[in-house]
């Protein structure tokens, strides 16, 4: 059985790369707007997305949440569209629209019949420069984002805990401030703050257009030139040099207690390097490391804490390589009933030390790589996911070439690379360790 599988894996390794190519075309408009076209002709659908290289980490101090607030306000009117008319128009054409904000980007998208692409470009290019807001829009929508914070954060002990731990992780970078904003600053957000962010960052030379689906690149190019190409670049666009992390020299520890905790857990995050353009090797090793440590039943942490011993009910390892600046490598261990958080943390640290000592099981490494290869095939079934992959990369310091080189960089990772990356990243001086627990639970 194992031999058959090994033979099969070799066969697939040879067969996959050619089969996994997605059809991608890229070009740049004269005003600096980058364009990515991904073809998928299986269904008469298109996803039209505009990504701005501006997220919550680009905000000025004191106005946390303004990037996300502005995202909401872009659904209000322009000089030619009444408030709400944008989404209503998309819906009248059978489409759906939405938007999302993260640390490094804000993105707007519509999913609609492919022959409606021109209308989407007309409206999206309009609101890139012609937004019209009044005080009434501001007050109501501010209440909406406050309720959004209530729902996502204030009502969840786990989310409050993550927010506190994340703030402790970053000594200087804006990644330590929540995307949705701190509540007192959200209450103070107004028209002036929103418009200032809009005027600074919303311009074609700070945006990436991603069109994916049943389209021809030359048609997309003609339409993009007509609508987005007509907009002037912003000559005053600030350079994206945000406050960086200084050396981190001391571990931070926190205990967060909340009566709404049903299952306590330990969370550890380490400051980690992100994927850099042209130099993705270390990030690739960390990506593989996360899979080997936390990727399901056969992972190192599951083996040590859930199989060999019954220390934990859940373990996970996660690395977010796509990030403009320093990112984190995160571990979570939820102790089994009767196991203290201290015992869970100790067992986790012993498992990490044991892993660095023993090294990577070559068969495990091969399985992880096999899955990453197969993911390339599965990903072609979801054109939205592909569109997101390029949008995120291009707003987080990577190029189309980096995205396309990534699978090969990952396949080239050796067991030694993984252990080296682990040794380097698991530096407690750069770590935050948090315990989430209920006050009545005596550990």
């Amino acid at each position, binding site marked *: 059985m194992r031999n058959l599988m090994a033979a099969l894996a070799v066969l697939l390794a040879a067969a996959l790369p050619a089969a996994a190519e997605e059809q991608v075309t890229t070009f740049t408009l004269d005003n600096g707007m980058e364009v990515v076209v991904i073809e998928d002709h299986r269904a008469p659908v298109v996803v039209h997305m505009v990504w701005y290289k501006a997220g919550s980490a680009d905000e000025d101090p004191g106005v946390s949440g303004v990037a996300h607030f502005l995202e909401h306000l872009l659904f209000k009117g322009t000089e030619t569209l009444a408030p709400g008319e944008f989404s209503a128009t998309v819906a009248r*054409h059978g489409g759906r629209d939405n938007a999302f904000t993260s640390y490094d980007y804000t993105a707007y998208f519509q999913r609609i019949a492919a022959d409606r692409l021109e209308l989407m470009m007309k409206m999206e290019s309009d609101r890139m420069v012609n937004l019209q807001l009044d005080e009434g829009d501001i007050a109501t929508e501010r209440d909406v984002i406050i*309720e959004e914070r209530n729902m996502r954060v204030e009502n969840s002990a786990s989310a409050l805990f993550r927010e506190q731990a994340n703030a402790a992780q970053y000594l200087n970078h804006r990644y330590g401030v929540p995307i949705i904003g701190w509540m007192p600053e959200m209450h103070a957000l107004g028209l002036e703050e929103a418009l200032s962010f809009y005027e600074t960052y919303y311009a074609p030379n700070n945006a990436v257009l991603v069109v994916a689906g049943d389209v021809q690149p030359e048609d997309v190019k003609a339409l993009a030139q007509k609508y987005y190409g007509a907009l002037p670049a912003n000559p005053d666009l600030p350079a994206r040099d945000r406050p960086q992390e200084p050396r981190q020299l001391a571990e931070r520890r926190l205990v967060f207690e909340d009566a709404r905790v049903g299952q306590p857990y330990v969370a550890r995050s380490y400051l980690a390097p992100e994927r850099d353009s042209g130099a993705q090797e270390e990030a690739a090793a960390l990506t593989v490391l996360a899979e080997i440590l936390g990727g399901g039943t056969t992972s190192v942490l599951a*083996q040590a804490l*859930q199989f060999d011993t019954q220390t934990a009910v859940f373990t996970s390892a996660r690395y977010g390589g796509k990030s403009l600046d320093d990112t984190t490598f995160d571990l979570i261990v939820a102790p089994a009933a009767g196991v203290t958080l201290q015992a869970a943390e100790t067992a986790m640290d012993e498992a990490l030390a044991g892993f660095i000592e023993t090294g990577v099981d070559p068969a495990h490494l091969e*399985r992880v790589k096999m899955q990453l290869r197969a993911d390339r095939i599965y990903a072609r079934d979801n054109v939205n996911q592909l569109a997101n992959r390029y949008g995120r990369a291009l707003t987080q310091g990577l190029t189309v070439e980096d995205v396309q080189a990534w699978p090969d960089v990952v396949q080239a990772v050796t067991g030694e690379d993984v252990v080296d990356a682990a040794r380097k990243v698991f530096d407690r001086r750069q770590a935050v360790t948090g315990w989430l627990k209920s006050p009545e639970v005596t550990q």
Partner: protein
Amino acid sequence: MKRAFRLLAPVLAAALTLGTAPARAEVDLDVGIEEVTSPGGITAWLVEEHSIPFVALELRFRGGASLDAPDKRGATNLMTALLEEGTGALDAQGFARAAADIAAEFSYRAHDEDVSISARFLSETQDEAMELLRGSIVTPRFDEDAIERVRAQVLAILRSDNKDPDQIVRNEFAALVYGDHPYASPEDGTVETVEALTREDILAAHEDALVRDRVYVSAVGDITAEELGRLLDDLLGDLPEAEAPLPGRAELNLPGGVEVVEYETPQSAVIFGQPGIEREDPDFFAAYVLNHIVGGGGFNSVLMNEVREKRGLTYGIYSYLSDRDGAAVWLGSVASANERVAESIAVIRAQWARLREEGVTAEQLKDAKTYLTGAYPLRFDGNGPIADIAVAMQFDGMPLDYIATRNDRVEAVTLEDVNRVARELMDPGKLTFVVVGQPEGVETTVN
């Protein structure tokens, strides 16, 4: 067990969340579904799509967690979670390794109407993938150590759910509305019932739930009808026939009014509901369009407009027609800060009463129809989504030509239909709210 521990999921993006839905009335929708019957008599719906070398396979077994006896609640859920924990010579990790070796992905989920099993595998590895899947479904090991490990995970999830306002409100609403029907209690069971489950209970749940005469199958991707037919008999042919009776209809208790469940948290979570409508009802499509206008239409629904856009009382408010076996309910949800939730409830009630009296406008109906008919074709945009839809259609008893005729049925709904259904179906007196939080100015009025 790959089950995600939901509290641990990192939230990075702060999107305006809306349900996905996909655009165009005039598209002549031909997904190309064919019905395949195996030599052994098992039927499946197939879409051949050879452009990407993989297959999405969906299985749904009717019954699911509602086959649990009241004191064994959670048995089907625990059994389903254990299917990937070993079969034949493979223990839990051996099974996971074997699947990873060929990059096959299996997922097993128990719901209150069904057990659903999804598989995704590269077409070259079809035989190996099906051998693993068959083992997990037909001859799972249910090892004692796996039972204890997975039971501990389920208990951890239940303990978290018991402190989560969104989950508490779902449980409390179900307990109020569904009487002694299984839908009245959580499908995952309670801490007490799950702690008491034995290996014999798991074996019994397996025999009751995974039966060959209650299974629906769809496959989409790089596979032919002949291959699928052969595969079906191997995969499912050795399963037993059903013996456990399906639960009957639920006696719905929707008395109108409000039930407050005190819980210390800043934002109140609310579920509301009133009697719904069966999918087989001749007025179903009129009700479906009506719901879209009332609360199903994303940014543009009446409730979203009144509660969020005009008043900023919530981040999101939605309604939908729930038509689970034996229980048709019109449901909705909203969440507002404790000091503002009374106003949200008042606005919802006022709109419910107004829509019943005044109905919707011709403009609203026109916009709803263009959206619904236009969005429908956009759902069929990948092997995975098409397989999901094809298995759900069989489960709901829809004919093969449903996809081709569905938009005509939406188009056939007239303003008179919608507004008659609004008058007959919308019942402010039965609209029942369950509120979890510390709502100001809201009192319990139901018994």
